């Protein structure tokens, strides 16, 4: 851990697998005690925590649905590992349908988790970050939102909302040493994308391949680092050139 860094921990929502798990591994390697959050995949979360522990890192596993206001608050409670000073809002879901066919429930679920969950977790974390004069919030957005993707109007709205939220919160808290940024992954090999990958998609991507969770996690790690102290309110696109 860097000298002079205030005592605290990193919470990565939705980190039992995929981008969240890869991020947890990297932040633990950087010396942060990490909270591995999961909603349903306890086994996956425990495996990530054990792997981090076996490599000398500190990890705790914490269940909670970021779509539930009360559960979000409990994820952010200061514990033995201190307050959450690095928050990675990664938990997300999709409920795809063409917009005339999106049910209210499908709309609301996606907004609740992807956007409102990000807001609630950030709201709970910020007072502690302000007090510490240090904080890193990294929100996992998407290239879908800034750009179109038919069948994902609810997802696009939520992720565009996350980017707007990121910018405004960043300017509110910048003078206290707290940075707020987003990453916008393109097509990444995760459980969220397994149904849509492999349909000649690679041809559309300038890099001619989909990305890996580790490639997104590396960008989150940078935005969470001391070195990124003057980077705030930005969205780092990680998409192999797809939206360039």
């Amino acid at each position, binding site marked *: 851990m860097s000298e002079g860094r205030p005592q605290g921990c990193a919470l990565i929502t939705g980190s039992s697998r995929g981008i969240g798990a890869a991020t947890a591994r990297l932040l633990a390697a950087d010396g942060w005690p990490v909270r591995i959050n999961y909603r349903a995949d306890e086994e996956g979360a425990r495996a990530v925590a054990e792997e981090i522990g076996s490599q000398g890192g500190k990890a705790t596993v914490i269940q909670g649905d970021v779509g539930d206001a009360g559960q979000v608050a409990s994820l952010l409670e200061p514990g033995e590992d201190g307050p959450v000073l690095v928050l990675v809002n990664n938990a997300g879901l999709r409920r795809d349908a063409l917009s005339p066919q999106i049910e209210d429930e499908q709309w609301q679920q996606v907004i609740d988790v992807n956007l409102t969950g990000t807001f609630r977790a950030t709201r709970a974390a910020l*007072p*502690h970050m*302000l007090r510490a004069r240090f904080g890193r919030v990294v929100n996992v957005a998407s290239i879908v939102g800034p750009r179109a993707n038919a069948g994902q109007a609810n997802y696009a709205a939520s992720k565009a909302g996350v980017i707007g939220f990121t910018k405004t919160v960043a300017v509110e808290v910048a*003078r206290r040493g707290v940075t707020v940024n987003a990453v916008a992954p393109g097509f990444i090999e995760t459980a969220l994308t397994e149904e849509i990958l492999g349909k000649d998609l690679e041809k559309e991507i300038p890099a001619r391949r989909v990305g890996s969770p580790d490639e997104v996690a590396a960008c989150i790690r940078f935005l969470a680092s001391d070195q990124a102290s003057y980077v705030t309110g930005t969205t780092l696109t990680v998409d192999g050139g797809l939206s360039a």
Partner: protein
Amino acid sequence: MPTDVTTDNVEKTIYDGLVELGTERGDLSREATLESLDVDSLDLVELAQIVEDEFGVELRGDDVKDVKTVGEVIDLVVSKAG
């Protein structure tokens, strides 16, 4: 355990908090306005966290938006705890 919410305890916590946030102790009084002390909205967020940590009293944005003086902040905390 949260500290007892008495006017004296709250006054001490608010005064100490404001000093920590950069206010000169000599400038503090119940009548002093937050504007005259250069206490901005982000300072108020921090002050709310200090109050919550000390007394377990939660101050929301709507609670503090009309507060003008240090004395009003103290009275607000005491009344919210009551």
